[in-house]
């Protein structure tokens, strides 16, 4: 058993973990973060995407023990209880989710992409947006609403609007 410290959504936690426990499982079970989802456990669907030290990573391919001292953000930390992050609001406006299972993974993978595009002040082409989400599978929406939501969030961010 290894005792580690995880800083998750701004709160520090000490947890005792077996080395083989996935970060996804520790976040879900020990910290009751139900927003982390597991779709395949082999890195091919993107559902489990969280941010570790500022970068989107697959929590089903990360052992919790590797993250001692790391800053972790899950979808719960993105926009709080009412999903107030601009990308979340754009998802709602553009019907970018149906069953919701893939949604946290898309949000965590795309939020940095959106922020970067806003900083650069340009709206990426459709194929760039689709490439940015190429590691995330959605079975319900056909991706159309998600692409529209990304575009809307970037556009609104550049204009300085809140959606």
């Amino acid at each position: 058993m290894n005792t580690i410290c995880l800083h998750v959504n701004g709160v520090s936690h000490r947890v005792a973990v077996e080395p083989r426990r996935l970060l996804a499982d520790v976040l879900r079970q020990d910290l009751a973060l139900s927003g982390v989802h597991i779709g395949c456990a082999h890195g091919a669907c993107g559902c489990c995407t969280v941010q570790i030290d500022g970068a989107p990573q697959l929590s089903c391919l990360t052992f919790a023990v590797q993250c001692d001292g790391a800053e972790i953000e899950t979808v719960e930390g993105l926009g709080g209880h009412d999903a107030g992050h601009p990308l979340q609001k754009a998802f709602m406006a553009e019907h970018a989710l149906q069953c919701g299972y893939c949604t946290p993974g898309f949000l965590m993978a795309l939020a940095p992409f959106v922020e970067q595009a806003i900083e650069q002040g340009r709206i990426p082409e459709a194929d760039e947006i689709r490439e940015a989400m190429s590691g995330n599978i959605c079975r319900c929406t056909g991706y159309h609403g998600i692409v529209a939501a990304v575009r809307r969030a970037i556009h609104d961010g550049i204009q300085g609007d809140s959606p």
Partner: protein
Amino acid sequence: MRSAPFEYHRAESLDQAVDLLATLGEDARPLAGGYSLVPMMNLRLARPEHLVDINPLGLDHIVRDGAVVRLGGLVRHSRYAVDTTLRKTFPLFAEASSHIAHPVIRRRGTLGGSLAHADPTAELALLAVLYDGVIHVSSARGRRSIPAGEFFKSAFTTALQAGELVAELEVPVPATGSGHAFFEFSERKGDFAIIAVAALIRAAKGRIAEARIACAGALSAPIRDANVEVALVGQSLETPGALEAGHMFAAAHDPMSDIRATSHYRRHLIAELVRRAVEKACAGAGGAA
């Protein structure tokens, strides 16, 4: 679908890493990006008893050192698209790496990990073979160098011995004005290649002075073909005989069949991609005449 039990060790330096690997023995594996190893562990296809986490090692340099460029084993795939040194000398790294899986995976996967994993279709292994790279490996016994052509033995099997880590890939910088080309065919963007081909052409006075063609996906490791390369020397850049080169390369090997593609189809793709690669590399070398 979770891993079997193992013990976790964290190395803070290369010395510490190789010492740990030596001490822990054959059932210890280094853990870098983990995006190839951990899926196998979750599927219980790999059951190392010890993991040595080498992420703290740094080892992620990309530097020009005279006639070579040195890339550290922990260089992440997403670096190639933005590293100015590499883009100038080895444009194919950026291009080939854009075919590796997806952005989140590229941000984490490492050069050393990819080379050590030795998937037969891996893009970086293909480039190492194309550019006649040398792989420097470290262990508690010291350092040794393995030419890329001898490093990849067969599918998921390399010349690495127990306790050895890929510390660095050294690639000799191609002559200025060389033409480079990379083509990959896969079912979806980012999937494992069905066939990938890379070409490097050095020209002199409008003719091919040296040709290198490498292919991944045909056999269990990336291959070059000396006969094809020799046949191309002396051809004009305008009409290098790309079609013939493609057929020659394809005819010389018996590609594998799997659920993605039959041997026949692979053979056809080899011929087609070699043709395209030779044409493009020659066109890129044209300016050097």
